[in-house]
Each structure stands twice: as C-alpha cells, then as structure tokens.
C-alpha cells in the first residue's frame, strides 16, 4: 500500500447494513408479502424496499436450491456487500447484510473514490455470527415456533423486536474473527483437589437450595463446571463473558457497590452479590426478577430462571425451574448460604492457581501467539486476544494475519484428514495451522529469517510445552 497516499486514504470497517427475519409461508399470495416479514432492521426502511429485499433473498435461496437441494445457499457476494442466509427453524430465515470494508481515496481532482474490498470478509466468520444471533435469541426467548404457539405472529414479532433491537447494537462486526467460528469456551486450569472442592461446593449448594436444576461455575470469566449440556453452555458462556460480566466490572473497579455486609448481624462477612436479581437484599421492596433462559430446546424444552451470583472472581449460575418464583426470602437465604462459602472458595482457587502457576513456571508470558480449539469439549485458548470487553475483542496481531487464520480454518473444514498448513505471510510472519483429530492449533511466529524447518521446530517446541498432556500429532 502506498505510504504517500495514506494521508488521503480513509478506511471503513465492515458494517451491518440490514438484518431481517422472514417466513415465506406467512404471505404466499401476492399483495401479502409484508406478512412474511417478522423483523426488519433498520426499521426506517421504506416498506416496499423491505419487501423487495426479502423477496430477493427468497428468490436467491429458492433458485440456488435447484443446484444443491441439501445445502441451501449460505451467502451471496456482491461488490458492495455480502448477504448471509440462515434457516435456523424450518421456513424461518434470518438474513444479515454486511457492507464490505472500503477505502475512500481521493483522486487527483480531489473527488473521493470509494474502493470496496470484496474479498476481505470471511464467510464462515459471519455465518457463525448469524447463527449466534439465533442461539442468543433462543436462549432468552425459546424457539420461534414456541412464540408462535404462545401467541402467534404477534407475539413472535414482539419478542424479535424486543430482543434484536438491543442485541444488534452489540454485534461489532469489525472485530469478528476465527473465535466467532469456534464459539469456544475458555476453561480455567485447575488442580484436581481444588476442582473437587468446587464440585463438593456445587453439590452442597444444590442440595441445600433444593430447587436448583443446573449449576455452572466460572472463575475469572473461565468455565470450571457446567451442569448444562455443552451447546446450551456454549451460548450461556458467550452471554456471561461478553455481556453480563463486563457490565458489572466497572462498578467493581470503581469500588462502589462494595458488598461487604458487616451491618447484617450474625452473618459472616462475605463478598457475594447477585449479578442478576435483587440489587439490595435489605430493601424489602427489592425485585427478585431473574432473566429467563431456555435450554434443551430439542427435547425437554426447559424454561429456567438464571441466577448469577458472584464473589470476587468466582461466579456461580444457579438455574431453577421457571415455574418457581424465587422470593426475596429465597434470595436472602441463598446469599447467606452461598455468599460466605463462595468467598472462601474464591480465595482458595486464587491461592491454588498462583501456586500451580509458580510450580509450572507458566508465569512468564508465552513467547508464542496462538489459538487452540478442541471441537470435542469446545475448549478454546488464545494468546492473541486480549481481554474481552463488551465493545470489542482486541487482538494483538494485524487483521491480515487474522484473515490468514480464517482461511486456514476454511481449508481444514474441507478436509477430514489431519493436516498441517504453513504460510509465509508478508512482513516476515509465519502462520502455522495444525489439525489433529478434533483439535486445531494456529500459531503466529515473528521470526525474520527463519526457514521452514526452523518454523516447524518452533511449533514442535510449543506443542511439547503447552500440549504435552494431550494426544496431538507432531
């Protein structure tokens, strides 16, 4: 890229152009097309244009189906934007239109020229984002079908509007990458004894609180235990770590909201507090409203209250059947039982973690930048991404490198065999992708004059130190 022209250049990241949900069965006759549309963003768009866009998508999907009946079209590439299609439930289509990133240049006569970068966006990344949109909706609202059963199109539309109106603002399409494809879970490393302590804690709490159906336990935003099945936990984890926890970090850091309840007589001092539900237990008017979530929607279809309670860095999610309405008394009881024990447990974990870190010598930051993912347990580990914030996920490497990672992943998806891909990127970076059974590893090396053999050796070294306790082929 010409350095001289950089001053005049202006870059625009990818952006959400529109997002809509429709069901072609709802308005099959001419003149009734509007009935198909269940949700449309931005809402301000003129009705006919909405109908046109929906109709176009419908036509594309219908047309391409002739060529591939089992795998309908997933995306449509155009010069200016890219459309992603997803049919999460039969006949319910979700479409997301993303504008390609662009560069605005100034021609010699001063006129701005916009150049679309058509090949920048990765299909898999944004398809995954679209799928996530559905999963997140389903977590808090249940399936589309359920809404239809509950109150027909009207209720479904209300729910979609209520949910996506806010959710779409948090999409941040410019910082989506490989991790969105994985939708992984970061697990907190822990020794067996401390892990069992947590197990014991959970069992005790489930017994004494009596009505808890499932429990999940996290420390430092990393998962330690899930009573939920993997797929439900995956999306709940996403919600907790990208939405709920970040929202509560600020007050913690500011020292406000200090939850030491010395004023409660006979109560052990503890640091526990509700992240969902009542803010102040001493307030007799406090509302005990917890978010509802829907799990196991494929079979038992359970509706639950999500109680998230946190002490220091340890967070525990108790999920209770939605038919039970947790009272303020229950919340107080939970606080008095869970609070003190969780506080102790949190400091135990912290202490043990530090000891283990010292023993294993992993205190030092790893030299390597890598992303690891295991499809079997969704375990994900990245030294590329900094702390997740509600707004963006910061990476420490250039977006071009992230794109190479995405490309390698696409290659892996096409092949069933274990394989290894080594790419020499511009600016002296080496990018290595390895796939062994269900595991994928991506390494970025910054070694100026390294050759292929040396890079291979480096990656071997990394595997030997970081992954020596799993079966990972060299």
């Amino acid at each position, binding site marked *: 890229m010409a350095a001289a022209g950089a001053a005049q250049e202006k870059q625009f990241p990818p952006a959400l152009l529109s997002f809509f949900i429709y069901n072609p069965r709802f308005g099959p006759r001419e003149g009734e097309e509007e009935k198909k549309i269940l949700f449309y963003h931005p809402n301000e768009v003129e009705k006919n244009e909405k109908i046109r866009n929906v109709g176009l998508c419908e036509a594309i999907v219908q047309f391409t189906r002739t060529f591939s009946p089992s795998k309908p079209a997933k995306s449509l590439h155009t010069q200016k934007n890219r459309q992603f299609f997803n049919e999460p439930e039969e006949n319910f289509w979700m479409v997301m239109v993303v504008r390609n990133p662009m560069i605005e240049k100034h021609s010699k006569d001063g006129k701005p020229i916009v150049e679309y970068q058509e090949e920048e966006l990765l299909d898999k990344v944004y398809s995954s984002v679209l799928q996530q949109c559905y999963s997140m909706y389903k977590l808090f609202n249940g399936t589309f079908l359920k809404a239809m059963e509950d109150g027909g199109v009207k209720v479904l539309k209300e729910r979609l509007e209520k949910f996506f109106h806010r959710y779409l603002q948090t999409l941040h399409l410019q910082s989506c990458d490989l991790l969105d494809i994985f939708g992984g879970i970061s697990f907190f490393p822990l020794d067996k004894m401390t892990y*069992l302590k947590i197990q014991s804690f959970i*069992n*005790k709490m489930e017994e004494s609180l009596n009505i808890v159906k499932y429990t999940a336990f996290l420390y430092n935003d990393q998962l330690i235990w*899930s009573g939920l*099945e993997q797929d439900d936990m995956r999306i709940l984890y996403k919600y907790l770590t990208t939405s709920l926890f970040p929202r509560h970090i600020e007050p913690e850091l500011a020292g406000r909201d200090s939850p030491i309840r010395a004023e409660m007589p006979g109560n052990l001092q503890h640091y526990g507090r509700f992240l969902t539900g009542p803010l102040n237990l001493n307030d007799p008017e406090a509302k005990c409203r917890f978010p509802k979530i829907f799990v196991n929607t494929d079979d038992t279809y359970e509706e639950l209250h999500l109680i998230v309670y946190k002490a220091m860095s340890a967070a525990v999610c108790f999920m209770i059947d939605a038919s039970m309405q947790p009272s303020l008394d229950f919340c107080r009881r939970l606080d008095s039982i869970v609070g003190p024990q969780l506080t102790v447990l949190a400091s135990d974990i912290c202490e043990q973690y530090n000891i283990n870190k010292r023993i294993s010598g992993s205190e030092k930051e790893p030299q390597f930048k890598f992303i690891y993912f295991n499809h079997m347990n969704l375990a994900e580990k990245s030294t590329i991404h900094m702390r997740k914030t509600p707004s963006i996920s910061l990476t420490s490497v250039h977006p071009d490198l992230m794109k190479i990672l995405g490309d390698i992943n696409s290659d892996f998806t096409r092949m069933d065999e*274990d394989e290894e891909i080594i790419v020499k990127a511009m600016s002296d970076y080496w990018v290595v992708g390895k796939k062994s059974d269900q595991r994928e590893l991506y390494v970025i090396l910054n070694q100026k004059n390294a050759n292929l053999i040396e890079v291979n050796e480096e990656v071997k070294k990394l595997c030997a130190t970081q992954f020596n306790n*799993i079966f990972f082929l*060299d």
Partner: protein
Amino acid sequence: MSEEEEDYYLELCERPVHFEKANPVNCVFFDEANKQVFAVRSGGATGVVVKGPEDRSPISFRMEDKGEVKCIKFSLGNKILAVQRTAKTVDFLNFLPDCPHLEYTQECKTKNANILGFCWTSSTEIVFITDQGIEFYQVLPEKRSLKLLKSQNINVNWYMYCPESSVILLSTTVLGNVLQPFYFRAGTMSKLSKFEIELPAAPKSTKLSLSERDIAMATIYGQLHVLFLRHHSRTSNSAGAEVVLYHLPREGVCKKTHILKLNRTGKFALNVVDNLVVVHHQDTETSVIFDIKLRGEFDGTITLHHPVLPARSIQPYQIPMAGPASVTSQSPVPCKLYSSSWIVFQPDIIISASQGYLWTLQVKLQPVVNLLLDKGRLMDFLLQRRDCKMVILSVCSQMLSESDRGTLPVIATVFDKLNHEYKKYLEAEQNYTMVVETGQSRSNPLLKRPVRTQAVIDQSDMYTHVLSVFTEKKHYLHELVIKTLVQHNLFYMLHQFLQYHVLSDSKPLACLLLSLESIYPPAHQLSLDMLKRLSTANDEIVEVLLSKHQVLAALRFIRGIGGHDNISARKFLDAAKQTEDNMLFYTIFRFFEQRNQRLRGNPNFTPGEHCDEHVAFFKQVFGDQALMKPTTF
C-alpha cells in the same frame, strides 16, 4: 436386646479374673504393675494364689507365716517376690530356677522411717517409699542381697505409681498438694519438676488436704497425665465436681491442660480406657466419658470439656456361675454394679474384692453411633478409638443409605475427616521410607515406622464395605463412577471430570473409554489423551490409530517418539491395504523400503518380515519399476 440395652457404651470384660474373695483368713492384694491379684491365705502358710488377666494358669505357692502381709508383689516377669510385713523391712523370695530359695530381708536405710510401700520398676529393681523419702535398690538374687542405687530424702504423705510410664508420684508438704514425680529407667532415677495441685478453696487448717483417692495417673494419647478429682469447682458459679488434668512431660514443667466438667457431686471413680477418661458416679450408678482430643471450650491455656455422651450405667453383667460340675444348672446371677466394695485401678481395672472378680472396663462403639448425633463429632470420636474401622464404615454406609441419608455437607465433613487421617498416615509412611532410603535412619534412632491404626481407611475398605452395595458387580472406584455416569447418560459430566483429571489415568480406564466411543464419540479423544499421558502405552496408541485406519497418524506418532525402527512393517502394510487407498499404501510401503535401506543397506524386505504378499500387491498396482532400487556405490 431391647433398645435401651443397646444404649450401654461401657461394659465389663467377658472373662474376668476370678479369685477367692477377701475374708478374715484370706487377704487380697492387687499389683498394678503386673496386674496380678494375690490371694494370701493365713499369711501365706495355707497358700498364695496369684492370677493375672492374661495368664490363665495361676501361680500358687506357700510361704511361712511370718506375720500379717501388708503388701506383696512380683518383680516384672515374676522373677522375685517381695513381701512387706513390717514397717521397716521388706522380705524377698527368689522365683528363679538356679537361685537359692530362701527368704532375705532388706531394711530401709533411713533411720526412723516407715515404709509406706514399694514398687518394682524392672525384674530386679525396686523402690521403697518411706515417709521420709525414697530408696532405689537393685536386687541381687544370687547373693540374696540388695544394693542401694540412689535415695532421696523428702517428706512423703502418700505415693502413687504408674507402671506404664515408670513414674512415682509423691505427695509432699503439710497440705499434701505439692506433688513430686520421679522417673525410673535402667538403674537410674531422675527427679522431674514438682508441681502444685490447686486446692478447691484456701484450706483453713494445716492438715493434709489432698487425698490419694482423688489423684490418678494415666497415659492418655501417649502422654502421662495426672488426674485430680476436684469435688468443688473453684469458681462458685458451678457447683459440680470436675476432673482436672495435668500434663506431666518427661522434660519441662507440669501444666494444667484440661478440665472435665462432671456437673454433679458425690463419690466418683476414674478409669482410662482407649484414651478416654471414664468417670463413674456411685450415687446415680452411671458413668460418663470424656475425650480430650475432641474440641472443647478453650480459654487460651485450659480446655473445658463436657461429657461426650449422656451418662449411662455400665452394661448389666451376669456373673457366670462356673461352680463345680454338679451345680451347672445354676443360672447366672446379676452382678451388683457400682458396689461400694468396688475398687478401681488405673487404667481400666475394676475389682470387686467381696465377690472375688477383676474386670477390665471396655468401651462399646456401636451404641455411640446412636447417642452422638453430630456426625462430624462422632467421626472425630471414632477415629481416635482402637477398634473403630467397622463402626466407621457402618456409619458411612448408613449415612449414604436411602432411608437415613445425611445431608451433603455432613457427608462431605465425614469423608474429609477420613481422608485427613488417611493422608496423615500416607505422609508419615512416605516420610519414613524417604528417611530410611536416604540412610538418615541411623542418625535418628527414635524413628519408627508409622503404625497403621484402624482409623486409616483406604479406598478398598470404603469400596468393599460402603460403596459396593450400590452396584451388583465388582468394580473399582473409578469404574464405578464412570459406569454410574454412563448409566445416567451424564456424558458431559464425565467429560468434565476427565478434563480436570478427577479420575486418575490408567490403561484400564483408557480402554473403558475406548469402549464408550460408539455411544459417546469424544471418549475416543479422551482415551488417546490418557494413553499419551501414561507414556507407557505407546503400543496401545498405535493399535488404536491403526484400528481407526489412521495409518499415517500411527506412523507419525511412532516416529515422533523414535520407535519406528522396531515396528512391524507387516502390521502397518496390512492396515494401509485395508484402507483401499493406494496412495496411502504407496507411502507406507516406501517408508519401510527406506527404513530397510537405512538399517540394512538394502530396500528389500527380509523373509522374516512376512511382507511377500504386500510386495506382490505393490508390484501389481505400481509395477516392478516402482520398487526402490538398492543404492550401489
């Protein structure tokens, strides 16, 4: 047995020592050191019968009646008999085969002193306690004489001997409440630091205020303690009597450490059984027990204890009427418990002189289970008892049973306690092994191999007696966990457990996981990871990969660990052929050709490798010319 009977947690031993009861012509003596009862008829002239709880055949002999016997005791091992008949002398009689069998006498050395009694401290060493001090002698049986080893002048009111620890306690001073202990060992006598027993109230007179009846000495948890029965508490707010425990170390000062609250008054007697202090109360005919290891109220120096259990009588006892054969029809007679003719000796002896019985007192653990409702405390209590294992396991089993299930925190507490005890033992054992192996044991003669008490409960105990009821078949604990999870379809839970290594790695476990692959696919990965960590299961890994037709992966793995020179070419070629992937077969074939070349200088397979069929197949598919040519120089 009725409910109530099951409540008794103290009992008299089943087979007491029976002796002729005391009467005007038969005097009975008890020797605490050998635990022997002496029945002396007519001053010995018509016979002396000696019986101990262990020796079933009594020793009987006659001796000349030289006057009233005041005290009679054998030395350790029944070598020499000592008899005190006067206030100044003790007579000796050898019971050794090659020694003269004629009495000899020793007079106490101190002028004008009266002998209060004597104690044997070994088979040939004896201590005279007089009102003016103590004299430590060595008996020379061949010479029929004694040699004074050491003596000490001190005014003595009364004395007490603890044979277990070879300590003699002397009551000195006018009030009698300053106690001076002496310790005896192998011909030496050492004075321990004296201490004062705090009397209930400032005594008004200057007469003897501390009676020997209120003092006992016993070893509790390996430490010598002096027990003082204080009839009235020093603090006015509690009227009941109490037992004050003084810890008497071999070195250092004696300290008051525990107070046992009796909450009643009257006549008491003390025993120590299985490290428990048993206090008998005559008025109510009940007893209570105290365990100083159980948590009490600690004020910084002294711990206050309450009875572990509610007061109960000793279990009613029937005297077996083992009379002459002609009267066998006689039914057993109930024994009068807490009789005023009972005499109690330390640590666990109860004697009824009027009935002619000597019992040892025993603690029954099973009834405790129902009396001590706090399961944590119950475990603390049981873990310190000698024969605790089966009772503990029965408690665990009961706690986990459907009808009587304990809450999880309680179960957790109990298991934690068992684990703690087990861990303590393992660490001690490990430490011992290490010290022995590094050869430091010579410099540390005190080092002893840790004793595995019944409180050490391991996985197999727990499995056999508690957990095995939950499954029909015999499994090991980990297998039980896995099978249970599988049965309940809790695969994700199992996965998480394995992820955090809750279940220890082992080949059988890895194989079990492999067998689960068809119902839970991730089990395959979990199994391979486990085999990898074991590092002794490389052959298994290769087998697993080959069975999945991952021939290349298997080869890469074995090459990665440097084992590719020793693998069977046939096995890999077989697997490659089965994949029906000709290119894969080519690659594998070529790899082995190259190996042959490298190892033997020729790419051809040897007959021993049994690869003829594969060579033929290779030629058929790729042609003769595709075979690797031997490199010639």
